[in-house]
């Protein structure tokens, strides 16, 4: 009986009725969670294959055997790797990511404030970049094939192929050293005025924006051009609709999904850029914390930072996919 129902369901699906949207989205979220789990295994395995004894590293060469044994027991170092992984994951889920090997502080405390700083930087950058990138992407699509479009194409290719630290150093050289308009380091004091805040954030935000702006503009243009080459737009053009109206009224509503998808995907490039930008401007964010932790081989801190970045990344890709799913019913047939 149950088999017959299952077979019936199977047949109905094959005929063409797509599974309900909520189920598809739930499936996509489940996949993301699975990926996150796989990522956590990779991060843990990657940082645990470190040669050498962690207890020895913490206590130094002069430690007594008893102290070493005690610390190993406290850190669960005598347990098999899979058990330590579960311990670690359990702790992570409860906001307890262990203690820094360097200064003994709780990782959660160290990460907390830095995370907020990084999120603020990312937020400012997003607010500045998205409208600008959409404007350039859409205008390039409207005037595609013109000199403007070609110039935008060349410039954006050049921008995506240049390391972020080139922009960062050039920006410091021009605006902080030559023109002396802005500070070279981004240090915000408590109780800083709005103007001071603006000056401190100007260079890091501008550098970070540039890194994702080109990507976003290119993807926006591509999404829109794709729609513009469809037959209903051609029909409208033959009817005599003006080019600007053609793009804004006819193409853009249907391109919203792909464009939003492009925006979310481009934002995931923030993750690479933020590492460089925070280092150049000595910005007290999470990425700077992670780079410092890597140079001192402070593994619990590296693990926690890596997991936060990977979660953010997966989240952005998930949002991009869900938007695409909502916007394009054809993707639901699969």
């Amino acid at each position, binding site marked *: 009986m149950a088999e017959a129902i299952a077979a019936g369901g199977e047949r109905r699906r094959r005929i063409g009725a797509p599974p309900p949207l909520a189920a598809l989205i739930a499936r996509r979220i489940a996949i993301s969670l699975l990926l996150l789990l796989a990522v956590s295994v990779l991060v843990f395995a*990657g940082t645990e294959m470190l040669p050498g004894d962690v207890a020895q590293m913490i206590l130094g060469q002069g430690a007594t055997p008893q102290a070493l044994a005690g610390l190993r027991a406290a850190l669960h170092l005598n347990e098999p790797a899979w058990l330590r992984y579960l311990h670690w994951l359990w702790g992570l889920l409860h906001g307890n990511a262990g203690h820094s090997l360097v200064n003994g502080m709780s990782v959660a405390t160290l990460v907390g404030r830095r995370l907020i700083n990084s999120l603020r930087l990312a937020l400012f950058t997003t607010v500045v970049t998205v409208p600008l990138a959409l404007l350039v992407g859409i205008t390039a699509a409207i005037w595609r094939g013109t000199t403007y479009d070609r110039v935008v194409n060349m410039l954006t290719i050049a921008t995506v192929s240049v390391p972020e630290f080139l922009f960062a150093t050039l920006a410091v050289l021009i605006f902080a050293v030559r023109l002396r308009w802005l500070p070279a380091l981004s240090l915000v004091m408590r109780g800083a005025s709005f103007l001071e805040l603006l000056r401190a954030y100007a260079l890091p935000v501008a550098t970070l924006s540039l890194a994702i702006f080109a990507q976003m503009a290119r993807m926006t243009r591509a999404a829109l051009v794709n729609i513009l080459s469809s037959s209903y737009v051609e029909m409208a053009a033959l009817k005599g609709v003006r080019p600007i109206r053609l793009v804004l009224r006819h193409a853009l509503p249907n391109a919203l999904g792909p464009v939003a998808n492009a925006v979310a995907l481009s934002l995931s490039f923030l993750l690479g850029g933020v590492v460089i930008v925070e280092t150049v401007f000595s910005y007290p964010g999470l990425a700077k914390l992670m780079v410092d932790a890597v140079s001192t081989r402070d593994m619990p801190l590296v693990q926690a930072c*890596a997991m936060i970045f990977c979660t953010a990344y997966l989240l952005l890709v998930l949002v991009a996919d869900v938007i695409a799913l909502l916007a394009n019913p054809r993707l639901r047939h699969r």
Partner: protein
Amino acid sequence: MSDEPIRGRRRAPLSPVALAAGAVVVACFALAVFGPALALHGEGAIVSRHIFAPMSAAFPLGTDYLGRDMLSRVLYGARFTIGVALPAALLASGAGTMLGMLAAVRGRTLDAALSRTMDTLISLPTLIFSLVVVAALGSSITVLVLTAAVIYTPGSYRIARSIAVDLSATDFVKAARARGEGGLAIMLGEILPNMVMPVLTDFGLRFVFIVLLLSSLSFLGLGIQPPYSDWGGMVRENIEGLSAGAPAVIVPAVAIAILTISVNLLIDNLPGRGSPRRGE
């Protein structure tokens, strides 16, 4: 895509942009090989008492934080920037293409297993992934090459697989199957010759990504270690000179930009189009 196998090679003339970009790329690779022979001063030779000197006749690109000749340093640095990125890109592109074809030719089980593995790898942000690896294993050249190769294999895999899946449904592949050719013969003899252009384009893209990734790592002080320096590392070691406006900071970064922009422009202006752009 036409159903006909492409045997003879059609040659379309290269555009001026492609020619110019290609010339720059060739020049960069020549530097990686002959750079040390062209350099006037040794890699570590301190030749001036002035640190962060501006450009001059004696030192065309100025001097660095120890008073070494920047022109010679940049010439030596090409070996590391290109010499480490090239094998990594070859590995990534080679492994990705082979595995992609394998997934398309062999049955669904292998395809599913490979595709899920690649999906997992691609869901790690690249710079964060390499930071974790470097934290655990240090940054020897072997680790750097292998890390970059692993990070960029999934991208090549996805592109190669999607083309190979299309190709393996064509009549000439079915004919080869009917003749009783094995999987390897079909991959190398039937499928690969018909996807040379996309694979080469993809290889160029991977090379650019890897140059940028390794330069960023070096810039963070976590890539090629002293006494050797690639161009990214030179930006880092001279960063103190930024406030003095020293060319030593900007020149190596510009060198990277020249290399990566010209590779990208070359790919973008190759005849045959269909270049897979960025990401995925």
